[in-house]
């Protein structure tokens, strides 16, 4: 077994900052006791002298224009779940290490990735693309790996003996023990894990409880450490708060770009595709703007979603600045990974769907359609709009014009030079749209061939189509 521990030490900050390319200073605050204190800050703020633990008022006095956001633990949890979903592309065994870590069992899938290096490389670029910073460590036990990642030691350890050597040097305050235990250990002069291990076990158990020994044994691999695997949620709904309200489409796209890889890997993991995607832009005080993206066929590729999102955003007038975006996959349908076609057919069909989606964004859904013949004798009902790609009905063997006028045009009979027919159509008495007409093919003085009819009831003449 080999465990990879990922620690997102800046997670509380990054849930705010990853939505934009931020140049200013940003800090996250939390109430400690009855004072607001800075819990984390970005590089720009820390160079200006802000450090975690500082009172917010002091930090604001130090850095004019410092953006301070209250810590959002729910968003951190969501982000971690999103990261766990994303990490599912590397290994099926991902477990959460709240509040800011993930543990991946990678020993069983190293040969699939052809070595650790090939696994770490896409992981690094993927996390950078999503806007997270992290430290990682590999060790044979999950807790051992986690302690190393906490300390920021980016090492790869394969053997238990080697792990013990690395762990003994770590400070005791990394342990997940109550504060009084840690203070107690300091007071007896045990500053590192090695010091703890050298103490007599019976005495340690009596003084600090079994939990400390248990944790140490698990870290060293002397006791089993069973981790439950992360199961992705049944729906995809991700929220991203922007540190400062944004109005430009580009800024929103940048933020959406951060969420798309998660969606893509979520769909991959569930072997599903999305057919309806919704991007909600939240404004201060006024109602949200909801952008809907519909796809002709379920898709999984983030690139294509972004392309269509770009067009939709470009055509939407946002009424106000946006402070949060929410990406919701509304309709998730099973989608088997498709085999790419060796010939051109498959490629072109896909392109056609893309064209269709793009046209629908600009022209509206109703303005782009397919047509299909319908088995009905009434000419105006024999052709209907349908979804493109639907299988066509039965073709008609009767003589029909290529153009049909949406509304029959009243005309005089003496305008026709010649006419042949008639073809009598009497139908539709059962649904109240009854027609009783004699159809002729007529030619007018200019050489146009028309499809005309004489209404039985009134004897009036109408043009209904053109043989173009």
């Amino acid at each position, binding site marked *: 077994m080999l465990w990879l521990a990922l620690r997102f030490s800046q997670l509380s900050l990054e849930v705010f900052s990853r939505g934009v390319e931020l140049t200013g200073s940003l800090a996250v605050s939390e109430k400690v006791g009855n004072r607001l204190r800075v819990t984390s800050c970005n590089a720009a703020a820390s160079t200006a002298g802000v450090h975690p633990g500082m009172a917010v008022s002091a930090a604001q006095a130090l850095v004019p224009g410092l953006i301070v956001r209250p810590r959002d633990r729910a968003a951190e949890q969501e982000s971690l779940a999103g990261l766990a979903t994303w990490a599912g592309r590397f290994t099926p065994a991902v477990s959460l290490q709240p509040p800011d870590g993930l543990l991946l069992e990678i020993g069983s899938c190293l040969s699939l990735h052809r070595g650790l290096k090939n696994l770490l490389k896409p992981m690094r670029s993927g996390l950078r693309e999503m806007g997270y910073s992290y430290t990682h460590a590999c060790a044979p036990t999950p807790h051992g790996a986690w302690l190393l990642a906490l300390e920021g030691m980016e090492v790869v350890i394969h053997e238990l003996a080697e792990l013990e050597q690395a762990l003994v040097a770590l400070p005791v305050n990394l342990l997940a023990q109550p504060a009084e235990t840690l203070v107690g250990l300091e007071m007896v002069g045990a500053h590192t894990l090695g010091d703890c291990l050298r103490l007599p076990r019976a005495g340690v158990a009596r003084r600090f409880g079994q939990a400390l020994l248990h944790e140490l044994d698990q870290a060293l691999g002397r006791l089993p450490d069973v981790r439950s695997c992360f199961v992705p949620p049944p729906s995809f709904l991700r929220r991203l708060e922007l540190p400062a309200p944004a109005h430009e489409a580009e800024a929103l796209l940048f933020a959406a770009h951060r969420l798309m890889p998660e969606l893509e890997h979520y769909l991959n993991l569930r072997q599903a595709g999305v057919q309806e995607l919704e991007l909600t832009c939240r404004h201060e005080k006024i109602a949200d703007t909801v952008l809907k993206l519909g796809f002709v066929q379920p898709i999984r590729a983030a690139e294509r979603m972004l392309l269509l999102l770009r067009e939709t955003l470009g055509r939407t007038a946002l009424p106000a600045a946006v402070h949060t975006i929410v990406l919701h996959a509304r309709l998730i349908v099973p989608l088997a990974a498709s085999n790419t076609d060796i010939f051109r057919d498959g490629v072109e069909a896909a392109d056609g769907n893309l*064209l269709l989606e793009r046209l629908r964004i600009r022209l509206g859904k109703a303005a782009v359609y397919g047509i299909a013949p319908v088995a009905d004798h009434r000419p105006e009902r024999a*052709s209907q709009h349908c979804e493109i790609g639907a299988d066509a009905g039965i073709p008609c063997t009767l003589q029909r014009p*290529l153009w049909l*006028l*949406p509304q029959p045009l009243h005309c005089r009979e003496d305008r026709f030079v010649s006419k042949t027919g008639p073809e009598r159509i009497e139908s539709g008495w059962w649904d109240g749209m009854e027609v009783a007409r004699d159809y002729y093919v007529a030619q007018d003085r200019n050489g146009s061939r028309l499809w005309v009819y004489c209404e039985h009831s009134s004897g009036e003449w109408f043009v209904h189509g053109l043989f173009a």
Partner: protein
Amino acid sequence: MKASLESVLQHPGIWRGDQAAQTDEEVLPTGFAELDSKLPGGGWPRGALTEILVGREGIGELQLLLPALARISEQRAWQAWVAPPHLPYAPALAAAGVQLKHLLVAEPQSPEDAWWTAEQALRSGACHAVLAWLKTPDERRMRRLQLGAESGRAWGVLFRSANAAPERSPAALRLRLEAIADGRLAVHILKRRGGYVSRPVMVDPYQSHSCRANRPSGAPLSVVQLTRDAATG
């Protein structure tokens, strides 16, 4: 002497004024032998714009395109009809052999949207044929369509009024259609790649075999058609 002249004329660098240009561009056979013989490469040009100028609707201008459109639909390629003036009638199209599965009809609200739609359809590379009825053409917009057709390798067909014949146009092929007495069409080739054609081509738009179901009984069958029918029947 004559043999040596012939061999000289075979030289690829020599082009004779009465020939249509030889093109490397892929073409779509029109389905009308008389017309094919006058068009460069022997068919409708792919990757270029074709302009069809019609004095009046309903003289068989769509019939002229149907054999090519039917062939495109058989290849399961897409075709787009942008801003058609009336409803394209599915039973007639299906009877003419056009499979409607990949036929896309777009009805943009404004002329700007219509030009945009036509350009996108041409440029996408997904549509083999794009038929467009567009208002307020100008040279810049037409050039964009022509470039779109080139990059998407599509056959772009633009229907315009016959009044536009004297205007300049970037289209690779311009045809003016005129109805003549016996239901046939006189196809005037106003512009083609590779020289001017002075005489119109006479085409019976209803001659094509697959389109016969669609023939209005007012239009007489050509003699060729009758004899072929007698032979097969």
